[in-house]
């Protein structure tokens, strides 16, 4: 989607209110929604801006094909109605064309203007009308054209000859971006890295999608192959769902802000293969370091298979490691934990003591995992408040008894 002069002027004029007499906005105007009619019932894409107060309305190449020959029901609202006798008109023009807005009987300024309603009495706060999408789009889907179609809502005070209008812009983008050039695909361990160049697409908001499958494919097959979209860089590592020793065919496509996608780039092959990192190499060479943490708890519970240990590990990974304060606690535990772990490991009595001491910690971890940090805090707060209340009652009870005796 590009910024056309009309779109720019409209965007500037509305907030600044600088249109003057020729661009008097309709007070209390709101966009209510768009619904497909007949064959388009339930077929409209969200990018058309179907919902209440939607401000962006886009029709791309795919939409153009789906919407061909169809109609939509558009609803706008003027609530409360302006006082006095008012007429309204609805008109719309395809990209590059305009309708007159000088009264409630709009006409084509430069050749094309469609008028579903003219000089109708404004007797309701809601205005409902039908738009023919072929007329709104105004071009063949494969034309490559791009521009802003305009929907006009015009109000005219019949006694004062006062005119106000609103315009709703539909960005009709029928131009697909150019395919990038896939320059390199390097293999890794159950992964590959794809790199591409793109000198043709200079507009803002260009994203890329990488497609890959274990057999050559065309644009028609992309629903059947794996892919990753929404990429804003020109390199991507694909690191999930790949198998080593399988040859993958990789292509990339560009996608503009209207979700128009280019044809596929050239296709390159890559075969991920197993690699050995430092730690795997160390372990493979007979290194004895077991790796991992949780020394005190492991020593206390004896075996890492204990359910309590699993709870503590989940608490560490899901709660503590998610915040800076939590990580500080974990690091502190790691810093000092091993001393204590080695000390208690061969002392069964001390292990039992530590195990008991860890019970409230495990309870707290269970509570936090079940309720979340906020829920656990509230639960503990409620428990503490309840405890204080009971304690206060217990303290006051002898005094109350004495008072009753008096």
């Amino acid at each position, binding site marked *: 989607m590009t910024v056309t002069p009309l779109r720019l002027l409209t965007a500037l004029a509305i907030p600044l209110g600088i249109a003057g007499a020729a661009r008097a906005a309709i007070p209390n105007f709101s966009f209510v929604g768009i619904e497909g009619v007949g064959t388009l019932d339930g077929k409209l894409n969200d990018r058309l801006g179907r919902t209440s107060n939607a401000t962006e309305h886009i029709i791309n190449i795919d939409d153009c094909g789906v919407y061909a020959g169809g109609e939509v029901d558009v609803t706008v609202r003027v609530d409360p109605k302006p006082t006095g006798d008012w007429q309204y008109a609805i008109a719309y023009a395809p990209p590059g064309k305009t309708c007159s807005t000088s009264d409630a009987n709009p006409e084509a300024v430069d050749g094309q203007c469609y008028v579903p309603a003219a000089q109708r009495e404004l007797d309701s706060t809601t205005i409902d009308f039908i738009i023919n999408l072929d007329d709104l789009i105004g071009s063949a889907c494969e034309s490559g054209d791009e521009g802003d179609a305009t929907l006009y809502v015009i109000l005219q005070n019949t006694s004062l000859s006062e005119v106000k209008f609103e315009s709703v812009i539909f960005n009709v983008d029928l131009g697909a971006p150019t395919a990038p050039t896939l320059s390199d695909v390097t293999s890794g361990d159950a992964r590959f890295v794809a790199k591409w160049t793109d000198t043709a697409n200079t507009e803002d908001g260009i994203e890329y999608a990488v497609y890959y499958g274990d057999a050559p494919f065309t644009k028609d097959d992309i629903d059947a192959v794996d892919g990753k979209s929404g990429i804003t860089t020109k390199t991507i590592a694909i690191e999930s769902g790949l198998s080593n020793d399988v040859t993958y065919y990789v292509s990339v496509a560009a996608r503009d802000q209207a979700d128009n996608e280019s044809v596929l780039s050239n296709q390159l092959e890559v075969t991920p293969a197993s690699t050995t990192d430092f730690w*795997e190499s*160390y372990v493979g060479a007979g290194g004895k370091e077991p790796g991992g943490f949780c020394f005190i708890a492991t020593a206390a519970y004896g075996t890492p298979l204990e359910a309590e240990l699993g709870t503590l590990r989940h608490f560490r990974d899901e709660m503590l490691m998610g915040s800076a304060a939590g990580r500080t606690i974990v690091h502190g535990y790691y810093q000092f934990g091993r001393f204590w772990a080695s000390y208690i490991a061969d002392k069964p009595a001390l292990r039992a003591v530590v195990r008991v001491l860890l019970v409230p910690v495990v309870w707290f971890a269970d509570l936090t995992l079940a309720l979340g940090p906020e829920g656990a805090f509230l639960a503990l707060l409620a428990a503490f408040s309840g405890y204080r209340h009971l304690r206060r009652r217990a303290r006051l009870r002898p005094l109350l008894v004495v008072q009753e005796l008096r």
Partner: protein
Amino acid sequence: MCPSSLRAKVLSAVAFAVPSLFALIATPALAESPRTMMLELHGGGYTPNVDSELSGATPWKDTFGGGSMTMLRMHLDYELWQAHGTLAIGAGFGYGWIDGNARNEVGDKTDDKVGFNLLPLQLSLVYRWDWAAVEHGVPLVPYGKVGLTGAIWWATDAKDSISNARVGDAGREGQGLTLGWHAAVGVMFLLDVFSESMSIGFDNESGVNNSYIFAEYQHTSLDDFGSGKSLVLSDDALSFGLAFEF
């Protein structure tokens, strides 16, 4: 844990901590302010002697080549005694990292980038013979340190995740904590000799009494005190840096 983001956070913490320490601890003074603490900022290399544990195999060298880790450290100590020298107790932490390439099945280097990260935490007893510098303006201060070290470490795979090596059905996580000790000797050069007025101004404005550059040679023994079941992360390493006494 996301290793890359952790690396960024550690470096950010170091960058944030240095000026913050001055802001919090240092106080302006008109006369020379009391000396109570020393802050050292170290930069240097570090090459864990991992391969020494293994007979013949060289996983460290194979993955990371002959280069050493980049190691940045910060040390802060509190001066307990000042007479013929200064005795201090301090703590410090650092962050070291190195990137290398994974190997394929025949041992050739691949494009998969892997890494190793080290986060040493140290408690030290420090003695600085700064009597000559403080009393007579001799700009050299030899010093020694000894203390305990604990180092959190983690190895990353090509996906920048913690490496996990499978042995049979069990996985072994490529992260852990290794304990040990360290001893260091070094020499500091007093920068105040270049401009006495500037050093006085630095003290008045920021409370920094003395500024030094230094070189330090540190022996670190990191193998869980010879347990035989730990990653050997020991090394003798040289570091350089700036120190501020305030």
